[in-house]
């Protein structure tokens, strides 16, 4: 009788334990973006300080790096210098856009004064663009190829080296697997 109860308990509990244990292997933020290898959501946002809205569609023909960030995000400070460096390296060959997430223009201005400016910073009031890109938190960076397809998504801070490798693969028209390896910093 006791053996039967034990067996029944195991049959019920063991799968649950397996499912939960399996769950620990995943970081919820590391869920693959369903948008990778799909067309990037079309958007237009006003740049910080006003002016004509910047539309993603207007940047077709060369790769675009979109970095979602905020002044209250510590890793964003770490990666900002890397992004500035990469944007200078790729000047004229790729477009860089910053999209500021859940932040205030005055604070963004002060932060950029302190940390340096290079490429347009767009204000995503209401976070609708962040939601269209499936942003969970900041920083997140998307690399979009010249045809408007999302080639890669970075969760967490990026480095100039990673972006160099990724943009290099994207611009040279490498296949998806090679591009993925390059964007992840894996030697091809």
């Amino acid at each position, binding site marked *: 009788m006791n053996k039967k109860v034990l067996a029944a308990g195991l049959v019920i509990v063991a799968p649950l334990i397996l499912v939960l244990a399996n769950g620990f292997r995943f970081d*919820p933020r590391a*869920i*693959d*973006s*369903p*948008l990778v290898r799909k*067309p990037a*959501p*079309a*958007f*237009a*946002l*006003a740049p*910080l*300080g*006003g*002016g*004509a*809205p910047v*539309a993603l569609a207007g940047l077709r023909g060369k790769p675009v790096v979109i970095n979602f960030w905020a002044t209250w995000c510590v890793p964003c400070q770490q990666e900002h210098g890397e992004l500035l460096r990469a944007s200078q390296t790729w000047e004229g060959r790729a477009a860089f856009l910053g999209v500021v997430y*859940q*932040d*205030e*223009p*005055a604070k963004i201005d002060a932060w950029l004064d302190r940390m340096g400016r290079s490429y347009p910073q767009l*204000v*995503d*009031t*209401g*976070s*609708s*663009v*962040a*939601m*269209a*890109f*499936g942003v*969970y*938190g900041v920083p997140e960076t998307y690399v979009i190829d010249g045809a408007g397809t999302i080639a890669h998504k970075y969760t967490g801070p990026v480095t100039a080296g990673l972006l160099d490798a990724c943009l290099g693969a994207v611009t040279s028209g490498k296949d998806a697997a090679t591009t993925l390896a390059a964007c992840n910093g894996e030697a091809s």
Partner: protein
Amino acid sequence: MTTHLRASAFVALLATAGTAHAEPDVAPTAASPQDVSGRIELADAAGTPTPAGAVIFLSARADGAAKGPPTWVLRMAASPLPTDFRIGPANAMMGGPTPDKVRVTARLDADGNASTRGPDDLEATSDLVAPGASGIVLRLAAPTATAETAPATGSEGAGGGVTGGAQPPPSQASEVPEGVVTGVDPTSVVGPPLGAPVEGEALRARTMEAARLLRCVVCQGMSVADSPSETARAMRDQVEGLAAKGYETQQILDWFEASYGAFVLLEPKQEGLNWLVWAAPGGLLALGAAWIVSRTRGAGAGVQPSGDDDPLAPWLARVRAETRPSATESKESES
């Protein structure tokens, strides 16, 4: 208050303006001698059909205030055009004194959402006029073309009339409150809205219905409807924006699923392996019920006195014999 918050307030105010003044072409605000009034018409009436669901966002800014929220805002039905307008202190966004001069901008918004600007939205901006001006004609045209302002047909009212003839430069014609243009085009993801635009109680109901089915992506298993986080609030606003345009609940869920994947859905789709999730609770309940029924039937049979084949029978008999008070024991107890 920060510009960010003011910009949000601007969108929110336009949204409420829309719900409060849904029917009439011109919102029935209290008339004031400082109201600016006139007519809105299409510059190219024959070639520009007014899209269904389009609305006109009317705003007035003080002289020199190219940025930041407008002084007055008003949302109007876009059809039929031409239509008369009246905007004034009753449409004030933040309160405060009435400026000496204002510039009125009308924008024909194809999707009816103040926070998005489509490439086809037509605009017209007046010259600087004093509060009380009337007879202003705003001719809607593509913002890249000349945002033409017709000369006033009748300048009357306190200090009214169109002053100055210079057209605003195109950049100013398309000037918007900082950060307000958050144009993501949902039609590219989920197609056009399947329903008609909703507002008021219906809008609230549809927003809540969809928000309950969406996971707040930064929370621990909470719905967008339940979570107080900033992200959930933004997601609710997005849901409301889509619902207001007429997107059905399923389309709204599809929009979020396109960017976040099935993770964002609190109710897994009824397909593939997901059927296990849907069927398992009922199946397990049925199994449990069947087990209980079989046990009680078995137990019912077992209450009969034990037969000789019961392995416990000899022990039961011995216990009964030992616990039964014997004749000698009872006599001892009496003495």
